[in-house]
Every structure is written in C-alpha cells, then in structure tokens.
C-alpha cells in the first residue's frame, strides 16, 4: 500500500552516487546542485506523501519487507522499513530540515571548487540516505546500517577540508569515539538476538511488554548497552568530546548532522526501545542521570567559549542532555518533541552563525564581531527567534518541549518514579540550572555578535553583507518554525484540554502498554498529570520562565550597554581558577589523552619498534634471508656447472634411496 516508502532513502542514494560520478566527471556546480538538492527535495516530497497516506489509513504500524538480507539457518534478517508515528515524525522533519540545509548549502559552498562542491553534496545526500535508513529501519540491524552510515558521513564531512590536518584529526576523533559507542550497540543487537531470537521491532517490543518480569534483567542489560551506543552517537558524558571538534566541518554540516539530525539518533533509538527502559528502572535511571549531568555540564562549558560555533556545539550537547533527561523520566514523547523543536531552532542557530561567519570571511571568534544587526537584519531576527526558542521563552517552540521535560522530571520526583523520587528532584534542579545557563550564554552570543559596535577592524567591516537568498530563505523558514513550531505540542492539560497536545496523542501509541502494573509508574509517566496538581504545574511553568528571564537579564547586564565586558572580566579575575577550568573545558580532552590515548600510543610504539621492526623485520624476515644466503654461499660449490657431476649425484641419490628401501 505505501509504495513510496522505499523511495525516500533510495532517491537520496541515487543522488549521492550520481554526484560522485559527476564529481569524477568534473561537472559544473549547476548540475551538481540540481542533482543534489533535487534528489533530496524529491525524497522530502515522497516522505510527505508517505506521511499523508499514513495519516489516512487505520493501521498504526506499517511494515514493508523488500527482500531477505541475511539468511543463516533459522535466523533471517529482512531489509524492511517500518512506518509508525515515531518514524513518521522523524522522517518528516529529518527530510524537511535536510532539504532546507541543502538549499542553504548552495549559497554557503558556492566558493568551493567544482570537485569539492560535488563531493560535498554527494556526502550530504549519502548522509540523508543513511539517516532515513536509520529512521525507517524496522529492525535493529537495518537501523544499525543507517547508524554506521551516518557515522561515516559525519566523518567524511567533518574532514571535508582534509587539507587542514586539524580537520582531518577532528573527523578521526569523531569516528573513533563513535566506534566505542557502536561496540555497545552491536553487543546490544547480539544480545537481542540471543534473548528474543529476532530483532524486528514489531516482535521484540510486544514480547518484552507482555512479560516484563521475565525480561527485566535482559532489558536492563540490553538497555544499558543500547544507551552506550546512544552516548557515543548523541555526544553524552563521557563520550561527548567529539562533538565540539566536529565543528571543523562546514557550518551547514554542523547544522544538519551535529545539531538537527544525526546526534538525535541516539534519542530516537532510546525512544524506539522505550519498552526496555520502562521495564528496567535501572537503565532508565542511568539514562536520566547521564542526561541531566550532561545538560548542566556542557552548559557550564558553553558559558565562556568565544568561538561562536563552539558555544552552539556545547549548547547542542546540553540540549541532547535534556532529551535524555526526558527519556529518563519516562517523558519519551516530550523527548521526541524536544528533538523536533531542537532540530528547528538549533538548525536555525547554526545556519545563522554560518551566515555570520560567511559575512565575516570565516572569522569565528565572537570577540572580533559585534554590531552585525545593522548589516544582516534577516539573520539577526531569525537568530533572535531561535535564541528565544532555546532559552524557553513562552510561545516559542523550545519553551513547550523543554518545559514539558522539566515538568515531567519534577513529576517523576513527586511521583517517586521507580522509587527514586529524591534523585529525580535533583535531576530536575540540574535541568533548571541548565535552563538558566542556556538562556545566559545564548543571549551572550546574541549581544556579542549582533549588538554593540563591530570589533573586527575596518577592512573586515567593509565587506560585511547580508547573505544571498538561498541562505536567508531557509533561515526565515526555520526561524518561523522555531517561533511557532511548539504549538504541535501545546500543553493543553494546563487549560484542562488534553486534546490540544497533538504530538502527545500522535506519538503515544509508540509507548506500548506494559502488561502488569508492577511498573505502573512507568506507564503513568507517559502522562504525568496525575503526579502533580494543576496549580503546581503552573508554578513550575512560571519558575522556568522566570529562570530564563533571569538568564537573559544577566546576559544583558554583562554584555550590553556602557560597561559591557567589564563585569565578566572582573568575575574571571576573581574566580580565575574556575574560569580557567571552564575555558579549558575541564581539561577533559587532556585527561582522556593522558588516561587513554597515551597508553595506547605507547603500546603501539612498542608493537612497532620492538615487535614489528625488531622481532619480525630483523629477526624473521632479514634473518631468514641471511640464513638462506649463508646456505647458498656454502652450497654453491656443489654447482660445478658440469652436467656429468649432476648426473653422478643423481645416480648416488638413487643408490642411497635403493639401499635405504632395501
């Protein structure tokens, strides 16, 4: 019935291959643009067609099987896609945002060489293919293929400027760190096969939901392993280190891969596997704790960074932390909701920053900016709307999603979810603090970049200019979306009308009902409204809004007006140690370097110098050769060159043989 489902990724794949071919053939930018953007546009169209068809048919889950991918004895893996509320939401926004960013890339990358341009779009299309595969896959292996695919593309795109070795290094870092997570994911897949005998979502989740007690331990195990994978892909503590470096890639890439889509794959996966977490309190708690800590931790680092993209990167990390916090407190729908809104405003922010960097001729240090509002109004306004959204100002998208997560966290604390009530209170508080910091550093960006006077010097000031329409158009669309997109999840329960929360009702079927009510709280955590009274919820809303406003105010005091930059400097001097700590990102990279990388390096050095060079090369290889040469030198005297001697020796040999055999 849904014929177009397979079309969505395959279109992108075709675009990618075609672009690779074009790049090899040395085609002009125009052709590449048509192919690259056109294919993704077509895919987006197909996605919306599929969505439309899906909405007009009863079944809540549609699985399309195409062919048997692996068949080994009893166990087979089909290449099959699944369309259910969750993947529907993901597909639609992934393809849409992806399309916008493709359009944006036309303007942003137009200075590249033809070959580079083609390469860029080929990778980008390939990424879209992998991401859609990931989202659509109806079993863990297919999902994993997409998972690895996006990893590969992120590596390729981070290292897009491979001439600069720090870019290449960043790409390698991302790839390697992701490997660690992928190991966990693989183990999870294997154990899933071991436990359930299959990896089809439509089979394992109902099975697990039907017998929660039987599968509790397995669920804990698998859930934790899956979460390891999610940590790697979604840049959570302790594996978040690759994401800030990933900013080495072109800004649209940062926007698409490292803000909007790929990094949220982990969240998607956790939500997809919500059943495991809901029947295993431990796993759930771990998810929540990691999420909460990451949220605050990354936010603190973001406070003092001066590279605009770095700040955005750390904010991404902390927002991802929020999403996991949501998942951890059982607000899976809220988490997905935040994924969507975050995709909107964070993409908008990155594209805006990209436009700014574009204007400042590649300058990324905010201290060299300022007063850009005059020169690039469109960018400014869209950026501002996105900033308000992320800061959680009402009406704007981010408010609804983030506030719902916080509310659910509080509700979990109040409801004593899985009996860890107090812990969830702490997490809620961390989230709140994170919100404050978020508001602060986001407005810090706004003020340092767009307000005040330009600090970049005259000649730089001359060619400040608004970006071309191909870049501003996506900005506008995303800005509007980040303004109004939140109404998809309007918290109707505040007004006693639950029906208003569209996304809640749409996605909720994904949360399969757990059979026995032993874990009733988990089931109930889907709708947290009974945990806390209506008044308390309103209070929470007001608190978070106030927090956000407070953050904005502080930012205003620090970076706007006459004594801008004075106060932060004083603070930095007073708490110089803390300042250094934050500025150097807690020296996490250095610690990892010392604890992990150096030992491995030394080990490799040992393998190289001792084992390879000495033992293998010297002793074995050259030693053998030397031995052969020596024997040759000795034996060559037998080679008289006289045939008759040879014949004689042959005869002697025959004689000896005969005597022996006698």
């Amino acid at each position, binding site marked *: 019935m849904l014929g177009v489902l397979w079309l969505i990724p395959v279109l992108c794949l075709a675009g990618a291959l075609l672009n690779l071919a074009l790049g090899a053939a040395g085609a002009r930018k125009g052709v590449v643009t048509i192919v690259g953007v056109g294919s993704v546009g077509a895919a987006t169209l197909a996605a919306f067609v599929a969505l439309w068809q899906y909405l007009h048919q009863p079944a809540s889950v549609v699985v399309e099987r195409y062919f048997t991918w692996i068949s080994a004895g009893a166990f087979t893996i089909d290449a099959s896609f699944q369309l259910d509320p969750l993947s529907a939401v993901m597909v639609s926004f992934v393809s849409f945002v992806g399309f916008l960013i493709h359009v944006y890339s036309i303007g942003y990358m137009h200075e590249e060489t033809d070959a580079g341009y083609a390469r860029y779009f080929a990778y980008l299309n390939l990424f879209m293919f992998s991401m859609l595969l990931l989202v659509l896959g109806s079993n863990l292996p297919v999902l994993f293929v997409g998972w690895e695919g996006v990893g590969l593309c992120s590596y390729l795109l981070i290292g897009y400027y491979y001439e600069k070795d720090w870019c290449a290094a960043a790409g390698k870092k991302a790839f390697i760190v992701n490997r660690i997570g992928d190991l966990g994911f693989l183990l999870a897949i294997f154990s899933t096969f071991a436990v359930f005998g299959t990896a089809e979502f439509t089979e394992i989740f109902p099975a697990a939901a039907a017998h929660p007690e039987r599968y509790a331990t397995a669920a804990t195990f698998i859930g934790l392993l899956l979460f390891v994978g999610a940590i790697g892909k979604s840049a959570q503590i302790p594996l978040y280190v690759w994401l800030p470096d990933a900013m080495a890639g072109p800004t649209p890439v940062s926007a698409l891969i490292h803000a909007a889509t790929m990094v949220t794959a982990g969240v998607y996966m956790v939500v997809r596997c919500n059943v495991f977490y809901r029947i295993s309190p431990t796993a759930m708690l771990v998810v929540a704790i990691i999420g909460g800590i990451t949220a605050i931790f990354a936010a603190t680092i973001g406070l003092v960074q001066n590279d605009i993209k770095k700040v955005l990167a750390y904010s991404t990390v902390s927002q991802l932390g929020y999403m996991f916090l949501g998942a951890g407190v059982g607000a899976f729908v809220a988490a997905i909701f935040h994924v969507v809104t975050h995709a909107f405003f964070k993409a908008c922010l990155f594209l805006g920053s990209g436009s700014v960097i574009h204007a400042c001729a590649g300058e990324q240090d905010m201290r060299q900016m300022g007063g850009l509002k005059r020169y690039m109004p469109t960018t400014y306004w869209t950026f501002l709307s996105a900033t308000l959204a992320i800061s959680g100002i009402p009406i704007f998208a981010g408010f609804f999603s983030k506030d719902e997560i916080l509310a659910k966290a509080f509700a979990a604390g109040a409801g004593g979810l899985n009996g860890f009530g107090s812990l969830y209170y702490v997490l809620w508080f961390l989230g709140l603090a994170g919100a404050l910091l978020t508001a602060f550093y986001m407005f810090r960006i706004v003020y340092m970049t767009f307000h005040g006077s330009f600090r970049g010097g005259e000649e730089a000031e001359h060619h400040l200019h608004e970006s071309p329409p191909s870049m501003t158009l996506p900005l506008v669309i995303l800005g509007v979306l980040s303004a109004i997109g939140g109404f998809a999840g309007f918290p109707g329960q505040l007004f006693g009308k639950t029906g208003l929360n569209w996304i809640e009702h749409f996605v909720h079927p994904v949360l399969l009902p757990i059979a026995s009510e032993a874990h009733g709280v988990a089931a109930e955590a889907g709708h947290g409204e009974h945990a806390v009274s209506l008044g308390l919820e309103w209070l929470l809303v007001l608190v978070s809004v106030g927090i956000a406003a407070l953050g904005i105010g502080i930012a205003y005091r620090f970076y706007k007006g006459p004594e801008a930059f004075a106060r932060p400097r004083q603070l930095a001097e007073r708490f110089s140690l803390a300042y250094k700590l934050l500025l150097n990102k807690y020296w996490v990279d250095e610690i990892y370097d010392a604890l992990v990388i150096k030992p491995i390096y030394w080990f490799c050095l040992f393998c190289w110098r001792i084992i390879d060079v000495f033992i293998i090369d010297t002793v074995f290889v050259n030693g053998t050769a030397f031995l052969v040469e020596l024997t040759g030198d000795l034996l060559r005297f037998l080679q008289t060159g006289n045939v008759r001697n040879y014949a*004689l020796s042959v005869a002697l040999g025959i*004689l000896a043989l*005969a005597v022996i055999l*006698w």
Partner: protein
Amino acid sequence: MVTYVFLAAAAVAIVFAVLAVVPRNPMINVLSLVVMFFAMAAIFALLGMDFLAAIQIIVYSGAILVLFLFVIMLLNLRTVEPFGSGRPLQALLGVLVAAMIGGLVLALAALLHPELGGVLPGAEETGTALTIGRALVGSHLFVFEFISLLLVAAIVGAVYLTKKELR
C-alpha cells in the same frame, strides 16, 4: 629352443649395448644401438609382446635413431674423447655407482623366485595389438591423449629451437 633364442638375444643386446657406449665414434654407437634395439624387439616378441616389438623397431630404429644419425651427420662431430677421459674421480665413481645400481637389481632378480612367464592370450589374427589398442582408447584414454599432446609440444619446441633466429 625359446630359451636359447632368448639367451642369444640377451647376449647380442649386452654386447651391442657396450658397443653403443664405449667406442668414441658416435656413428658406431648409433649403429650398434640399432642392433641392440633389434635384440630388444626380439625379446619382446619372445615374451609375447609382438605389438611392442613392432613399435620398438618402427619408433626407435625407424625414427629416433635416424634422428640421431641426422644430427651426427649435420654436426659432423670432431670430438674424439677417449671413454671416461678427464675427471678420473668422476669416471671411477661413475663406474662404481653404475655397477652398484646394476648389482642391486641383479641381486633382486636373484632373490626373486624364478617363475616362468606367460603370453597374454590375444585374438588369432591381431595378437596383442587388438587388446592394447582397446586399452589405449579405453581405460588409458586420458594418458593416450596426453601423450599426443606431449608429442605436439615436442615438435613445436624442436622447430622453435632449431630456428636460425634463435642465436
């Protein structure tokens, strides 16, 4: 009767084998080898292998040794080297080794129980030719074909080697 014929043939064979090895004139070697092959053919015939006898004469005497004659005539060899000349050690060892190998087999022959041999019954008019032919294109077909391949290869190789351009 048969026994005497055999002994005579054997004697001829041995004598002419020696003549084929010892004299320094290659022509004499070849000619005596012809005679020796005739003796061999006679022995084959005595052992009831008449087909082999014919083949022996046709192939060896009629073809191979003629080839030798050609080469000897064409190269018109002047090398008159006394038997076993040069390298006395080589010569001594050679004689010893050869004698010992022959002695071993002789000893073997002496140890074995001297049973009388027999003639393979063949069709009246074809003798063993028919049976051998059947076996060649029957159970031994592959080797037969392979031998023909080998001969073709040999011909090509010989033609190539003796081309003037080779040098």
